[in-house]
Structure formats: C-alpha cells, structure tokens
C-alpha cells in the first residue's frame, strides 16, 4: 500500500507554534513515526509539507499519476479556503482522509467551513499529533483496494 501524507501551511512550525493547541512534537518526529509504523505494516509512507497551495494541488495530482492508494491530508488553513484542493481531491479515486491535529470545529468560526471534508472519505480531528500515527496504524485494517 502506498500512502501520501500531505501537510499544508504552518505545519512546519509544529512544536513551536502555539504548542498549547498543536503540541510540542516537531514535524520531523511525526514524519519519522509515520514512516516507522508504515515500515512495520508494509506500507510505503511519503510525508510532505508545503506552505504553497499550488504545490499541495500538484502533490495530489502526482498521487493520481503514481497510483497512490491513500491520501492523508492536513490542508491546515487551506482547508477552509481552497476549492482547488477540493477539486484535486475529487479527481483522486483512492481512499482520502482529512486530518487535523486540533478540532477545528471547537475553534474560531472561520475554521468551521471545510472544503476538504466533502471531497474526502473520512475525517479525523482533535486527536493531537498522535492522530497521524493512529491513522497510519489503522490503514491496514481498512478494506482499501491496493493498486
């Protein structure tokens, strides 16, 4: 199984940005953990982050081209604004999970709109930075068709 974990703007600041909300774990630690769990489960995990909307769209298109089985996407602030990411995800026929470290629906009202969720199969939010490893851990139990 091949998985892209795609992260949006400011996720590179994890560990230092408002740690009371996002936790003290750095993005490299999270990436390492996801890849380790993947190795144990026979899942090829590629972890990426960009602050640019177009680059995120490009990676989703790469996922289509490279026949990736699962996209886990934390579009961060673009979740609430990006129709381009919504459209790109709709073109990806594999399994799609929207992920957030905090629960956006418990926060400011401008975070209550999500353009990602209606284009995704599932949403996981508010489980902290551990949400990433919980999701990767679960993937092999789901009835996902592998290319």
């Amino acid at each position, binding site marked *: 199984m091949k998985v892209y974990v795609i992260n949006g703007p400011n996720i590179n600041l994890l560990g230092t940005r408002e740690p009371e909300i996002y936790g003290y774990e750095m993005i490299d630690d999270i990436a390492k953990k996801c890849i380790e769990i993947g190795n144990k489960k026979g899942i090829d995990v590629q972890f990426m982050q960009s602050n640019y909307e177009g680059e995120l769209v490009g990676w989703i298109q790469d996922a289509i081209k490279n026949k990736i089985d699962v996209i886990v996407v934390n579009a961060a602030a673009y979740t609430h604004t990006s129709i381009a990411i919504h459209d790109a995800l709709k073109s990806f026929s594999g399994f799609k999970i929207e992920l957030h470290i905090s*629960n956006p*629906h418990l926060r400011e009202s401008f975070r209550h709109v999500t353009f990602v969720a209606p284009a*995704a199969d*599932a*949403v996981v939010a508010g*489980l*902290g930075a*551990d949400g990433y490893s*919980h999701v990767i851990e679960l993937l092999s139990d789901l009835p996902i068709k592998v290319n």
Partner: protein
Amino acid sequence: MKNKLLILNGPGLSDISLTDDFYGKITLKSIEDKCLEVCTKLNIGLDFRQTDDEDKLFSYLLKDSEEFDAVIINPIGYSHALTAEFARYRLAIKTLTLQKKPVTEVHIANIFKQGSDITKPLQVPEGEMGFVSGLGVYSYVIAINAIFKKLNKVV
C-alpha cells in the same frame, strides 16, 4: 489501573443495519463486537450503551459518566440539530470536556458528504474533543486507540 470507557449511541442506532459500499454490513451488534474486541486487547473496561430515550442519554452523559475515565459518543443528529436538544447536548459535552475527561464524537459515515450546510460536528468553544467521521466501525476503533494512548501517556 484498568481504564473504564463509556460508549454511548444515540437515538435511531438501535436498529441500524446498513450495507456500506466500502465497509460492508454494519449493525449495532457488529459495532459492539468490534469495540469489545479492541477494548479487551487493551485491557479497557467497556460499557457499550444505546438509547432512543433523550432523557436517558443525557443522564448517561452527565451522571453515569462520572464513573468512567473517557466517553465516546455517536450522537447521530444531536450535534447539528437545530433544537433545544442540541443546546442540551452541547452543554453536556462542554461540562465533560471542562472536567478534562477525554470525549470523542464519532460518526459511521462522513457527515460532510451530505453537504456541510446541513450537517456540522458539534461546536463547543473552550472544550477539547476528538472527532472521527466516515470510518465505519473503525471510527470507534481509532477513537478507542486514541483515548487509550491519551489516558496512558508517559510524560
């Protein structure tokens, strides 16, 4: 110490029997069996409940929850219904989260697929709550795993 978990299922879930294109057949019994399997493996004491009675649901949430370390709730329509029951539900969850008790809202289907104008997850400012939607029976599984990790975190 053994963790105690309360899983609450709201109105209408008693006779749930759906065949999902992706997850196959899902019934309340199959959800309970799966939750029990995961909790047994993690040595969590599980109390799995369902009620169609609103008063009972709130009594479970606010009173009975005192005996538990964490709560998982599938509120069905409560989280987004525009009724007095919604305000009551929201207050109950807020009370729990302010007690620093891990609470996670779960839904079998992705509630956003029905249009985000119609369905919304619960909005509780100041609270802290996990949210999982669209993983079928596994919405419960990931919530149990996350709660177990949170309750047993070595700092």
